[in-house]
């Protein structure tokens, strides 16, 4: 019965491939192995962070450490991290976590090392307070991650549209002209009258820019929904719907092709609440619009959109080496390098004192002093508590705003419906 033998052999092969791949993977790149006396660290990052240069530099200075850099899409990295933590195997030694996801992983903080145990407290004062607190437990005892870049927001604007509307095109003058939201509303009416164009492209950005200035947003620190009692979010919503109803806000949804092509067409005046990393999006969508864009401050203060942290999952067998590496990687000097190489805006304020850094200008943005404007914005950001269910509230409010903008729905009815949907979904968490 040779056939039987082959059958058994084949089967064991299938089983070996199907069942055991996890084990072999874990021993190969799970970071637990030491090869040639070297400590191997798996390092997951997303976006075009450009950390490869710094990783090479670190490995040359520390020949006993080998770092396996693994770059992926942002959502993939978070999903993979979530799955591997949930399954209990496959997580890297060091992972990048975006600010919108950090609260979710904070709920599973027993799956991560507390960086305070490795010396995070000693470097705390090198970073912006609000940024540091985003990766901290509410009681301040647990530090989940070290800060990477941040996304302080500014107002990008089209100089050609401003000129046509009879508004100043110089950043300082425009900032003085549109100093508060009443002035922004007046400017919106003037732009509509002179050019027929809306002042901004999407309801979401308009709303986010206002909401980010509030001292509290959707939840309090006990994760209770406060949008019905706290006035700020509703005020932002009402201001946005007022502008929408008067035809002063465009109807593009973020990240759609129409939204991208509107950047090139100049079919609106301002991209409000745009962080440093948005520069790459504008240049990518509108490669020929150089000199037609510029940027200045947002009326009444900046918010923050995006930015990440580096965390060390409990599955790592080398937390000390991993911590030493991220402390080095995210030091002010290296954050400056990441800014120069890839435009990651530093979260360490001592960089903002650097002459060379402050002198950074961008020809595409009509020679505006980009680094200085963002640095000013970064210093004015207020620390806010986002909470783990932030995106549920965010998605429903954006849906309500979209209905007002696109379908002409009644703002108050949409708000009530959104609050009801939010409560329904929160009950399940």
């Amino acid at each position, binding site marked *: *019965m040779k*056939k*039987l033998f082959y*059958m*058994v052999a084949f*089967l064991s092969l*299938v*089983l070996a491939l*199907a*069942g055991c791949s996890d084990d072999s993977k874990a021993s190969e790149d799970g970071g637990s192995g030491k090869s040639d006396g070297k400590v191997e660290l798996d390092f997951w990052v997303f976006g075009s962070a450009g950390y490869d240069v710094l990783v090479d530099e670190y490995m040359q200075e520390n020949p006993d450490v080998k770092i396996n850099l693994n770059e992926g899409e942002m959502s993939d990295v978070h*999903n993979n991290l*979530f799955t591997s*933590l*949930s399954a209990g195997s496959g997580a890297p030694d060091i992972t990048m976590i975006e600010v919108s996801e950090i609260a*979710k*992983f904070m*709920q*599973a903080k027993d*799956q991560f090392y507390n960086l305070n145990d490795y010396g995070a407290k000693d470097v705390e004062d090198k970073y912006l307070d609000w940024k540091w607190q985003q990766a901290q437990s509410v009681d301040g005892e647990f530090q989940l991650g070290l800060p990477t870049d941040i996304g302080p927001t500014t107002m990008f604007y089209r100089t050609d549209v401003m000129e046509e509307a009879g508004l100043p095109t110089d950043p300082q003058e425009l900032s003085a002209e549109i100093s508060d939201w009443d002035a922004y509303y007046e400017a919106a009416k003037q732009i509509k009258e002179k050019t027929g164009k809306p002042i901004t492209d999407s309801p979401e950005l308009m709303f986010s820019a206002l909401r980010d200035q509030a001292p509290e947003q959707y939840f309090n620190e006990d994760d209770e929904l406060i949008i019905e009692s706290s006035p700020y979010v509703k005020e932002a919503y009402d201001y946005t719907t007022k502008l929408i109803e008067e035809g002063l806000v465009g109807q593009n*949804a973020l*990240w*759609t*092709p*129409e939204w991208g092509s509107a950047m090139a067409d100049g079919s609106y005046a301002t991209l409000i609440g745009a962080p440093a990393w948005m520069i790459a999006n504008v240049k990518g969508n509108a490669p020929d619009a150089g000199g037609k864009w510029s940027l200045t401050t947002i009326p009444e203060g900046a918010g923050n959109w995006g930015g990440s942290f580096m965390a060390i999952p409990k599955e790592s067998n080398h937390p000390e080496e991993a911590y030493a590496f991220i402390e080095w990687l995210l030091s002010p000097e290296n954050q400056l390098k990441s800014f120069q190489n890839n435009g990651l805006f530093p979260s360490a304020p001592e960089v903002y004192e650097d002459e060379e850094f402050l002198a950074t200008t961008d020809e595409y943005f009509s020679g505006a002093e980009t680094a200085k404007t963002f640095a000013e914005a970064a210093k004015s950001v207020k620390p806010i508590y986002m909470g783990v*269910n932030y*995106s*549920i509230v965010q*998605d429903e409010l*954006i*849906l309500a705003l*979209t*209905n007002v903008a*696109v*379908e002409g729905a009644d703002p108050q009815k949409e708000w009530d419906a959104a609050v009801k*949907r939010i409560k*329904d*979904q929160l*009950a*399940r*968490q």
Partner: protein
Amino acid sequence: MAQPQLQPQTEAKSVPAKPSPGKKRPFFHLSEKKKDALSGYLYISPFYLLFAVFGLFPMLFSFYLGFQKWNGLGEMEFVGLQNFRFVLSDPIFWKSLFNTAAIGIIGTLPQLIIGIILAYALNSALLKFKSFFRVSIFMPYVTSTVAVAIVFGVMFNSQDFGLVNVVLNWLGFDSVSWSTSEWGVKIAISTMVFWRWVGYNTIIYLAGLQGIPNDLYEAAKIDGASIRQQIQYITIPMLKPIIILTVFLSTIGAMQLFTEPLVFLGRSFREEGITVVLYLYREAFSNMAFGTASATAIILFFIIIVLSSINVFFTNRIGR
């Protein structure tokens, strides 16, 4: 995925190896008959092993999760039937069920009827370049769903410069807001489903048509039957098993409609276009409520059983 692929049946039907005629050698002291049976089971085992790991286990785990409250990372908490109560009392769930049914009917019913007509044409002796047309009709099925959804997303752009809106304006109609209006969304998604699956059904029907013996048609012609009578009394009754198959696949596929609305609507999960599976996906991977997501899956499972039974009842009457 709008319809499940035909499950390859070959593994399950593999015939046990014939007893070898040569010398008898002792092998684990089994009788020849038992050895045959054993090797037979070994032949079919890969499918069942893989199914147990990747099919059965997730199903049972999902059933278990339906009674738990779990965010994917923390501790599970037994909550009894609470998840089912949440889902069944959620108007958006019922809306998603209605959407699924509406898109299913708009997307698949014309597809099946036109599929039969196309298959009849492809099978006709009058048609030239048969293989060319057969391949062309099947092409949409091979196209990636995501690519289809993106291309249709550009065509069904809500603004005035969207391709479909340009044609509508040209014909004197108003632009339709394809991504936000109640029926615009459904029609756009149904069109994608129709375009992608009509060729798939046509090819299945074509295979069915070619299985009908020509003698029957010849005999009918001699007896003076018209084309209409030939179709009514020969083609449709003989095609019945195939029609039942396609109706089943389409129903299950329509209930599982997911990729097209997800790519077309993005992550906004608008009420006008959310389907049951999209609702489930939102619960699990957007809201991190794996309990209610699993409860939705179980409810969907029972809905599919009920619909399939109704299908059996009605399709049995075809051609009687």
